[in-house]
């Protein structure tokens, strides 16, 4: 039977594909950015899903999970640490893209990426 | 090296004989040609008269040093050609100065005169001189090709470049002549012969009608005399080579006389039968008919 992790992972992958599709077909800069945030979310979900282990709890030591038997109780903490970084970086890029879109619109009075092709060949 | 000084008077003797024979022969052939054309023709001694007259005259103009050199080159070429080839086979007396060089030297002396002539006439600055030179060089260079090829065919055939050896190889009966042992080469050479004899159909270079055309135009008096002298010696010298290479050479002066006469007659004969070619026509003619023969001759050996 399919585990939660796999379902989450599948969902993540689907999100990525949706995001990519949008990014490839939408010519409006803002829509492309939105598409990318979707894809990022998908990636993050996959990241977390990979670390998930059935029947275990979050890697925080407290009364519920004493340090002694943490090994048997907690899930893999590494992906969670990684996803944190991934999220933040994705956010930085998104902010950057937004700023560029803003500026490009100010310059060219359009958000159509197909109209920004002075540089080519 | 020990040089036999007697060779010099002997060589001069050869030159003298050939010179006179050439003058007479030239006149004779002219006469024959004229008769063939239903004309009276010149008296047999006409060349002597012209020559003496021209030698007697003095010019008062010159076009510069190259202008002198033209006839000088020309005659040097002629005499050189004669002297570097043994005239009479087996005779020490008339082996001339052939110790100095072999066929290749002779070949080059065929060109020597033409080149110098062209230079000399060139300085005359006469535009027509240039035209004549163009034609002359173009035609001669092509006409000599089959000859050179034939010569090499022969050289390959006898595996030597020494004229004496070649003649020696042809002794003992007509059938040993190259004419029969290597007919292709001879055919090619004879066609070339026509081209270099300055007679129709290949005489556009010195054509009598276009008097102002051609190197001789600018030359007169002593210059002309030198060139006439050459015109007496050069053809004979050339025919000596032909004789030696293709027709078994000559062991005595009479034999020499006959063979040369017949060769000369051949060109005259063709001359009276055929109209004149333009230069490019003759070039094509040689390339189409003569050169292939020469090539075949070389391949065939």
């Amino acid at each position, binding site marked *: 039977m399919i585990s939660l992790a796999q379902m989450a992972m599948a969902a993540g992958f689907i999100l990525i594909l949706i995001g990519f599709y949008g990014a490839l077909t939408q010519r409006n800069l803002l829509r492309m950015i939105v598409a990318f945030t979707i894809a990022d979310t998908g990636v993050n979900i996959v990241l977390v899903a990979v670390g998930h282990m059935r029947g275990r709890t979050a890697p925080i030591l407290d009364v519920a999970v004493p340090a002694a038997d943490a090994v048997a109780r907690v899930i893999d903490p590494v*992906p969670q640490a990684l996803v944190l970084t991934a999220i933040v970086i994705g956010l930085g890029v998104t902010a950057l893209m937004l700023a560029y879109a803003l500026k490009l619109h100010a310059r060219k009075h359009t958000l159509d990426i197909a109209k920004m092709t002075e540089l080519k060949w | 090296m020990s040089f036999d000084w007697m060779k010099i008077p002997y060589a001069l003797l050869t030159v003298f004989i050939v010179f006179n024979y050439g003058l007479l022969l030239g006149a004779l052939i002219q006469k024959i040609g004229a008769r063939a054309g239903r004309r009276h023709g010149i008296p047999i001694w006409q060349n002597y008269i012209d020559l003496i007259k021209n030698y007697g005259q003095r010019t008062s103009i010159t076009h*510069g040093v190259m202008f002198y050199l033209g006839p000088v080159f020309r005659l040097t070429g002629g005499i050189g050609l004669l002297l570097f080839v043994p005239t009479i086979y087996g005779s020490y007396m008339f082996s001339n100065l052939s110790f100095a060089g072999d066929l290749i030297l002779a070949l080059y002396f065929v060109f020597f005169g033409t080149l110098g002539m062209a230079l000399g006439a060139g300085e005359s600055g006469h535009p027509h001189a*240039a035209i004549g030179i163009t034609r002359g060089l173009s035609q001669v260079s092509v006409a000599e090709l089959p000859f050179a090829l034939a010569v090499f065919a022969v050289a390959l055939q006898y595996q030597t470049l020494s004229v004496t050896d070649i003649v020696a190889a042809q002794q003992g009966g007509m059938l040993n002549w190259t004419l029969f042992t290597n007919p292709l080469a001879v055919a090619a050479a004879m066609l070339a012969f026509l081209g270099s004899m300055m007679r129709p159909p290949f005489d556009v270079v010195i054509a009598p009608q276009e008097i102002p055309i051609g190197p001789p135009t600018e030359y007169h008096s002593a210059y002309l005399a030198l060139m006439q002298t050459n015109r007496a010696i050069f053809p004979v010298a050339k025919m000596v080579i032909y004789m030696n290479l293709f027709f078994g050479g000559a062991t005595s002066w009479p034999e020499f006389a006959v063979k040369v006469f017949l060769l000369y007659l051949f060109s005259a004969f063709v001359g009276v039968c055929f109209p004149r070619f333009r230069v490019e026509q003759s070039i094509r003619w040689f390339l189409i008919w003569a050169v292939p023969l020469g090539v075949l001759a070389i391949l065939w050996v």
Partner: protein
Amino acid sequence: MVSALHIITAALAAAFLMGLLKEQQRGLAFGITLVTLAFMSWISAGWLWTFASTDTAAVEIFTAGTQPPFAINLRIGLAEAALTLLINLTGLFSALALKDTLLALGRRAMAVWLVAVMALSGIVLTRDLFNLFVFFEMTVIATAGLVLLSEHSKNDGQALAAGFKYLVVSQFISAFLLIGIIFAYHTTGTLNIDGMAAAAPLLSGSAAQAFSLAFFLIFIAIVAELKPFPANGWALDIYESAHPAFSALFSAATGAAALFAVDKLLLIGGDAWLPMATGIGIITFIAANLLALPQTNDRRLLGYSSIAQTGLILAVLGQRDILGDHTLYIAGGLLLSHAVAKAGLFWLSGLIAERGLEAWAALRGHPVLIFAFVSFICMLTGLPPFPGFYAKWELIHLLAGEGRIALLGLILLGALIEAGYLFRWFGYIMKREAPAEVVDNAAHKVVAVIAALAAAWALSLVWGELSVLQFERGNLLLALPLLFALTFLALDPLPAWLKNTLAIAGLLAWFYLTYTEYDPLRMIFAVIFLIGGSLTLLASYHAHGQRSGFYPSAMLMFAGLAMLIRATDTFDFFVAWELLTVGSYFLILRGKHSEPHALSYILFSLGGAFLILAGFALATQGAPHFDLSALADLVQPLAPWVFLLLAIGFMTKTAAIGLHIWLPGAHAEAETDVSPMVSGILLKAGLYGLIVLLLTMGRQDFYGVELINVMLWIGAITALIGNLLAIFQEDAKRLLAYSSIGQMGYAMFGLALMNHLGWLMALMFVINHYVYKSMLFLSIGGVAKRTGTREMYRMGGLITLMPLSFIATLIGIIAVSGVPPLSGFGGRWIFYNAILTAEARLPMVIIFLAGPIAFLYLFRLIYTIFLGQLKDEFRRVKEAPFWIVLPQMIYVAILLVVAVVPGLVLRHVDSYLNAFFPNGGLVWEGSTITSQFGYWNPVAIMIIVGVIFMTLFAWLLFVNRRAQKVKQFNIVFSAERPFRPETTHFAWNFFAPYRKALGFLTLPLATMFWSTVTDLLHTAGDLARRFYTGNGQTYAFHLLAFVMIVYLFGMGVRP
């Protein structure tokens, strides 16, 4: 020793510190930036020194007080140190070049710059996969931001668009990278690169499958950062729009870091992934070079070139399985060459106002910058003595040793294309008219270029030393002739006459130093190259002023020639070959209209050189050293191929028919005193090569074809066509050039006869051709100099005005045509004797036909120029300058002497040849020379002809002593001056009858063929580049398509 960690911390501290400064304190901020970058460079330099001087192992740097793999660790070794030094220095000097912009934009921009440089170093240092990702993202963001540095100067939003496109693509890349990383972690249980490399091979079954998928994603994502073809449109837009100083960083540093990252990854993936890297790399190399051909924008062109170079290095990394421990030497050599040269070129482009390639002509006024440019392009094309050359040599040899011929061929092909557009560009610089905008030589910008220049030469020194250490090869930079040539760069300001004296002294001194070690054969060439060279250099005294750039080039060529005849193994030989090629190229390029011809010359020469390289590599079969003499030991099936490659290579230099089209222009357009050098002397290099080849390898049977016979044919046809083409030339120097082609044909024919007489003839040609061709080129050059034209039909009647030149020409043509009694006849006599020995009769006939034709063009040469009617415009022409006439007179003397006593040279050569061809030599009795066919007595001939000639001449003079000179128009024009005297000089379309009869033989078939080839290349590139539509989404499509194609094909390669 400061921990390498502080490269990162220092940069970060400085970056964060920026925020505390006031917006106005920009000077201070800039100061801090520079100091930090300098500090970072200093750290790397310190480490580099440690590793280079002592063989200490790489040093691990732990963080968090915990051992890897549980905490992130960094590592610095030799490679890391070198790369970080490269990165930080590039960052430093680029920042310097960016001064104005950074000051204008303020502390934020500087902070971003610092972070960018730091991130690149991080990529190199880190040993943790996810950490690698973080640094990459940092680079991406910083890059996207720094592209905007150009915005404040030209405010057109192009950079914005480029940055956005880059972000779009990078989003896809980072998605793949993250997913790949997490799954790789999941399968191997670690993020540490070394740990993963250890764990990966142990995986099995589904885990291995999953891991290879994950690794593919990581690998392809990092490779995508290398801008592989076709997924690189975004990068090109960045190169074109960004500030050149940033492009320098982007090309040199980012490229290097990414390549090193790939190298780390290959460590994880193992050899199974090498083919994929190779494939992507080589395709990118070829395609990018092809696409660079039609570029007109300098920065975009440099972008394409950068991508190509990165591709090449990727391909080399893909060969690590055979490169073994030379990988660092080879890949490093290529990488550093590329990085330094590209950084330098981008910095240079910052000095140029306009973007067209022609605009770079502005550099012409600045010798130092020109020198920098030259050094950079030579570095890129892998010419000696730069590191790229050593690297290329080893690489090609290793490839050939392993039989990876296809890759070898592709690499050389790409390199040739690259050389094509780079040298074309140099041609523009030297020849196109300079634009109005002057070069912006602000100190802080020029410093960067100078630094790159210094780095370039320092690196060549280092690689030279390495080649000494690793392969016991000479360090080229320390080779005396080359050093001598290079010193002329420093002496450039001196007056020309002084440098000329030095040059001549140098040549003679070198001959004196080395003459003992030449066998007679080499001696001939030594004399021609060195003594002959100094003789032709006499003519150079005519030049006034400083003659900037002439002597370095000329001496480079002579250095090459000098080294060529001393070379004993393939390496030295090839080095010398390349040197003389490059030197002669610069020499030829000096001609007024020589731009296109110089280009075709260098392309043909490099093409030939590559063939030679391939040939040597094939022959060597991986042996470290290979003596030229060992060529003799080669056997089937290798030998004929080697022979073929080498022969064709050498024939490009001797301008064999079909490969000849570069020669006429190159020789005709060269300067007056250069033509004799390149014609009289340089051509002999090719013959020397052929001689060495034939002496060692001799007859080779290639699938039943006797290669010698092929060469016989080529020689014959070359002679015929060369002469034919010569007679129809209107341009005197072109006529001479074509006649050179013909003469080389004779020489090749002689060599191909492979018997005593043939070789004797060839060597006589070598000597004679040097003498009379140098002489003719000088005298004709002198005439052209005076009359200002080379069209013969414009001249005429110059004999009285330039008597000396006339005499030289007269003697020259007599010698060439071989008319007795001059020395030419000796050559001819041997020639005719030789061809009697030819088994193949048809080529013999062909070469025969070529003979008389020579008379025609020679006569035309002397007649149309010196005889006939003098033209009005030349009535006041003076004799050629003394220094041009002097060597001619010397040559005349030589010819006359050799004419009388040919034994002087001939005899020695003859006896020497007995060693190789014992029978069929000449017999010398008294003054008579006898061959197996005929005999020849030069002295007698001289005397006889002389006597007859002189008698007649004297007599003629005597009888006409009172004759007076006729005025020009006293003939046919009856002393009336004709209107337009030039019409009275029959010169145009001389030998028209010949053209009518034989014109069809002179169709420029070869020219058509080669121009078609180049056109095809250009069209291909021009069509292919349309593919970069400039639409960011299209680029995204390219990326995905690229990933998927590699996935579908590449994974097939995997086990």
